[in-house]
């Protein structure tokens, strides 16, 4: 019996202490990463070979315009001076203005960021709601190698679904449901129906990935002694799986979900492009192809900052959820 359960939780997997010092360290790390991101986004313009203003305006641009642009960007000053100005501007919420439209980058971001976040958040929620029960169901059905057919179908389908990139799902969904059946709008953001296809396109891959993790975690839990004991107590199935198994699988699943959210924020670039979604992703592609550097710089900075914030939030939330992290003074 015991020999069959060698994989049990004999080794405690929550050995790291997550006390106040850990929180401070996470926040410091976050601040350092944020600073590095600021330097990187500043350096980006300077890494561009040749003159970015020339590159942007083209060879036929009049010299006055080039000089005015250069001065407006502060590129004629020394690098440390430029960096201080840049940092000051970013901290005061000034990300520069678009080369093309003259709009402040902050306004562009403010108008488009909510649309991107809505897609990414909805897709994450949908993915977790579908994938966690799916993975648990598959685990219970395939425990100890029973129902090999189900196991095989599950791993093959999820393995295949993970491998197809989101832009192909987008194109397929548009072709079938928007152009073919006319059930949903093919592009743009107009009402609730327009969310369905982009959210679906974003969620399919993550569903497959999380369902695999959820199944693996559930299988590990089902092999533990405390689940054996809970089974010996003859708890009803729902209580057994929801109260005893689920909480222990959530740490890994939610860690992944958190990483996923930041991945989805970036992954939405391609999906937004297919659905002509008025989000940040659409804008960053436009700005790169049009060499609108201030916009590209601002959007990348915002994207990066969001990723860092999400990662920090996930770490802190997990620490708060983990019962072993609560330190009680005697």
């Amino acid at each position: 019996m015991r020999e069959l359960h060698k994989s049990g939780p004999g080794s405690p997997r929550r050995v790291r202490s997550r006390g106040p010092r850990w929180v401070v360290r996470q926040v410091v790390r976050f601040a350092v990463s944020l600073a590095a991101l600021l330097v990187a986004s500043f350096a980006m313009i300077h890494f561009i070979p040749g003159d970015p203003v020339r590159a942007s305006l083209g060879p036929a641009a009049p010299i006055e315009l080039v000089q005015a642009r250069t001065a407006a960007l502060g590129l004629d000053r020394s690098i440390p001076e430029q960096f201080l100005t840049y940092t000051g501007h970013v901290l005061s919420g000034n990300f520069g203005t678009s080369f093309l439209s003259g709009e402040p980058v902050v306004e562009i971001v403010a108008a488009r960021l909510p649309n991107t976040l809505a897609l990414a958040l909805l897709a994450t929620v949908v993915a977790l709601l579908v994938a966690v029960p799916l993975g648990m169901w598959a685990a219970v059905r395939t425990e100890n190698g029973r129902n090999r057919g189900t196991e095989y179908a599950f791993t093959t389908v999820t393995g295949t679904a993970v491998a197809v990139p989101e832009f192909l799902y987008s194109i397929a969904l548009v072709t079938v449901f928007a152009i073919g059946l006319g059930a949903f709008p093919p592009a743009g953001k107009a009402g609730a129906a327009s969310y369905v296809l982009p959210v679906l396109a974003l969620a399919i891959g993550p569903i497959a990935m999380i369902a695999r993790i959820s199944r693996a975690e559930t299988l590990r839990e089902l092999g533990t002694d405390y689940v054996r004991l809970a089974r010996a107590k003859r708890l009803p199935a729902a209580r057994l799986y929801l109260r005893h198994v689920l909480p222990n699988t959530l740490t890994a699943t939610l860690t992944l979900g958190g990483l996923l959210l930041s991945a989805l924020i970036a992954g939405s670039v391609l999906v937004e492009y297919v659905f002509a979604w008025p989000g940040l992703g659409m804008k960053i592609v436009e700005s790169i192809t049009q060499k609108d550097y201030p916009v590209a710089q601002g959007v990348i900075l915002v994207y990066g900052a969001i990723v860092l914030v999400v990662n920090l939030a996930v770490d802190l939330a997990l620490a708060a959820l983990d019962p072993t992290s609560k330190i009680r003074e005697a």
Partner: protein
Amino acid sequence: MSDTPPAAHTRRGFPMKPRLPRTPAAVAGAVLVAAMIMLAVAGPPIWGASAERIDAAAILQGASAAHPLGTDSLGRDLLARVLVAGRFSLALALAATLIGGLAGIVLGALPSVLPGRPARLITGTVNALVAFPGLLLAMFTAVVSGLGARGAVLGIGVAIAPGFARLTQTLAATVAGSDYVSAARMLGVSRRRILTGHVLPNIAEPLILQLTQALGGALLGLAGMSFLGLGVQPPSFDWGRLLYDGFARIYVTPEVALGPAAAIALAGIGFNLLGDAMAKAAARTAAGGKASDTAVPPDPGEPNPGAVLEVRDLTVAFPGGVTPVRGLSLTIAPGEIVGLVGESGSGKSLTAAAIGGLVPYPGTVAYGRLLLGGRDVATLSGKALGTTLAMVFQDPMASLNPALRVGGQLAEVARVHQGAGRAEANRRAVDRLGHVHLPDPAARARQHPHELSGGMRQRAVIAMGLMATPRLIIADEPTTALDVTVQRQILRLLREVTEESGAAALFITHDIAVVGELCDRVMVMYAGRVVEELPVSRLAAEAAHPYTRALIASLPDMATDRDKPLASIPGRQPAPSEVGPGCAFADRCALATARCSAERPPLIPYGEAGRVACWEVK
């Protein structure tokens, strides 16, 4: 792209030469990747001319017999272009993977040879970069290096590198901590030699696996960049660029997007399936065997109405002819504590699992009779079983759910099976915890298992069994994981609990000395069968079976001569699959005759209240 495979597989060991399993998924992956490579080699020479043939009469056509996937804005055949683009797509992905892999491996290996401060700086940078979605890094690079294939390859390479660096770091740290590297250090081998001579050769295999998976990721990432118009620019074309062109016409002729989309999807799936299969081959365990051959148990005779537990001819079998428990019979009277003794693999724990209905899946349980409180276990409801049978397992660390409070885990028995309300259930939980002498039970009930010591946890598990009014407590090596002084306390508690509640107990252990302290009766198991059964009071004097006598003889006591090695039984217990027709102990038995290995001795009455299975006991 963003889902560059995490370093999950690094935790498992990698055997030297993983062979690909022949599952359809693995075969499909291998076939798809092989087809891609063949297409990359043969595509351009075969279809190169028709892919470039401009036909002004056939501009922007949809699917037709002449052009199955339609034509582009210059009338070029799209099917031919898709077939030709395979080489460029694969070449770009290969270039990006090599750039990213090389950069990542160097970055990841450096900390293991550099002094502390720079090493920490690199580690920190890598950890920060890994958190960034690859596409973001690729975009950043694309801004700097401009549009085009070069920028995209560089961008995807940059996106891949952190994952490689992290994997290399983890692997290198493992190897760097190993004894042979420490030995090399002591011998004064240079850091560079340690890296090239010791570290890299030992981490090559998982890195190659990661390269395969990264190649698929790079291919999809590059396709994505080209699809956004940030990658390959005309007149060059890869699959992403063809999709970019096709997507613009999707409202008019959706089929023109089909070719490149299918090519990208198949390539992605192929690399992923192959990578999965390779990873699985590297961490594979043997699969189960064939169906079992459980014999039909003989007629069990009349049931014993007074017994708490009555088992007749219990057999537990696993596929492949493995039968760890064979025809076991035992009876437990109310209030009696029966010890089931045997070494590892004798089937004692599986016996307990079978009584509790907890034999893991491929195992099958057959019995002539399995009565708990006079009723067949198979007919008992979950509620009846959950309240009349309590189980205590070996490891108290593992028996309590780390995510739930101790009190809640006790209380749920009362809530689920006895319909108690929350407050009532909690009150009873605290009461039971006090009953097992847990100090400050109300506070303990509010704590999580990790806040209790091992002995306290085992007490809590016993208290959980006492939430209802159990008729039988099955304790499967409940003291093995505890230290000696705590063991004694737990034994005393079990004794006390059975005396108070009138419950019977089946106490499973490998330690015959413990049996003497706690039990009324002892049953000795060997290779799936009971070989001897007798009252504990007569254990020292009347044990008849050579195995039981050997077990007793191997116990050291105060009189044992400490200059001599401790007595042990030569040989080992046969595995469940290798038990022959005769007595399983014959090979290790000093008294064994030819009859012993040919014919199995039955378990027959012996002495005043015992039974023994041995030909040589008269």
